Each structure stands twice: as structure tokens, then as C-alpha cells.
């Protein structure tokens, strides 16, 4: 009885833990790094698990997912720095999911300002 319990629990924990290893690979995103230029419709937010911003590219609104808040702030990108309506260029990996307009972003350019959010991925 105890033996079955132990084995069963170990297996359950192993299963529950396995997908965690997928975290820092950007699975669900294209391998390819691409650029997009658009206008800011929702400014940088340094709240939540990742900093975010929304930009409009042609007629589509894209979710720009940045690094965790503290890391995004260290790259120099702060809330309120880029006004709504300004043009920005973002570089990153787009979602592979059809219809999902999301980019995991490694770099942001706003005029002459450059923000290297994930320098090691560039």
C-alpha cells in the first residue's frame, strides 16, 4: 500500500513538474526573429508577470509582450516614456497560433531611443 502510494505520488509530481522546463524556451512562438512598425495604442505597462504594450500595425492590434517588469525597466523602458500614438519598431518572435497577434519582444526602437529588452536573444 505504502509502496503504491509512494510511486503514484512521485509519478504525479513528475508529470506536474515536466512542462515547467518549457518555460524559458519560447514555445508557441516562431523561431524566426522579425520586425514590425506600428503606432502605440496602449503604452508600456510594468505590471504583471511580463511588461506589455499594444501597437497597431496596419489594421491589427498586436500584443507586445516584453520581459518581466524589473528587467524591462532596466533596459530603460519605463511607463509613460512612449506616448500613445507614437511610432515604434519592435523586434521579436511572433506567435505561431493563427489569429493570435502577439510578439515576444526582444528589442524596441522609439525614434532615436533603443531598448534592448533581451540583448542575449538579438
Amino acid at each position, binding site marked *: 500500500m505504502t509502496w503504491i*502510494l509512494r510511486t503514484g505520488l512521485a509519478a504525479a509530481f513528475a508529470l506536474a513538474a515536466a512542462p515547467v522546463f518549457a518555460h524559458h524556451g519560447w514555445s508557441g512562438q516562431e523561431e524566426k526573429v522579425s520586425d514590425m512598425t506600428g503606432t502605440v495604442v496602449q503604452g508600456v505597462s510594468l505590471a504583471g508577470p511580463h511588461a506589455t504594450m499594444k501597437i497597431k500595425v496596419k489594421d491589427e492590434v498586436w500584443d507586445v509582450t516584453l520581459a518581466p517588469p524589473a528587467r524591462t525597466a532596466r533596459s530603460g523602458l519605463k511607463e509613460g516614456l512612449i506616448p500613445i500614438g507614437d511610432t515604434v519598431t519592435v523586434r521579436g518572435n511572433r506567435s505561431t497560433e493563427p489569429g493570435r497577434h502577439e510578439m515576444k519582444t526582444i528589442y524596441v526602437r522609439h525614434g532615436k531611443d533603443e531598448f534592448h529588452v533581451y540583448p542575449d536573444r538579438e
Partner: protein
Amino acid sequence: MSLAHFFAWLEHSWLGASVRSLGVWSYGVINLVHILGIILLFGSILILDLRLLGAWRQIPLATLSQPTTRMAQIGFVLAVASGIPMLSVKTTDYIGNPFLLIKFPAIALALLNVWLVHRTVAWQAHRERDLQPVEQRRLAQGAVLSLTFWLTAITSGRMIGYW
């Protein structure tokens, strides 16, 4: 009110705005409290449930049940008190997230199971006398359901961010 409406309301509530204004480390700190709550909750439940399933029979059930249920209660309160602020930060991001729709019903079932187990004759008698085999089996069934529901809740909760 639909779930999407409720989520939009929570995100735009005073709570959501406050948590978003707390600085770049706030989410990490609240997340830490959530994890500590889950550790207390599930760690305590695991010990009690394994005892109900036949482990450590040399330890009287009443000796274990008192501290484990108290710690589990504290853990649950911590998890809820940190979970709602975490959800309020960007609530609408979670619309359509299937893991959320597994997690909350699993918590509801887990709490229902707690309530049902605590109502049994076996649970109410366990501090006064030794239990009959049939009563032990009843509590063991509750322990299996407990582990199933809580592990489902924790696993789907962990997966929310990976969707």
C-alpha cells in the same frame, strides 16, 4: 454578468489599479505569497491525506489532524489573499484560458469535499475514539478525492501562465 464582464470589472477595479501601481517587483512578491500559501496548504493536506490513506499509523490521527487542518486553513487564506490581486493586474488576459476554467471548479470541488468529510461521523469522532475500519475507509475515500482535486487545482493553476 458574464465571466468576461466580471474580468473586465476586476481589472478596472480599485484593487487592479492599486496593484499595478505598486512597482516592478510587486507581482513577484505577491506571487511569492501565493506560492507560500500553496506550500502551506498542500504540504499540510498531503501529510493528513497520506495518514488517512494508511501512512504513519503509529501517529494518532487526532495528533496530526489538528496542526495540519490549521496550517491548511492559513495556507488557503494566503493563497486567496494573494491570488485575487494577481488576477486583478491583467484579468482580461485570462479570458479564454482553459486552465483557469479547470482550476476554479477544482477548488470548488476540493472545498466541497472538505465540507463533506468534516460532516462525517468518522471525522467528528476521530478525536474521541479509535475509528472502525469502515470509518477509516470513508476518510480514505475523502483523502483520495482531496489529493485529486487539490493536485488538479495546483497543476492547472501553474499551467495558466503557459497557455
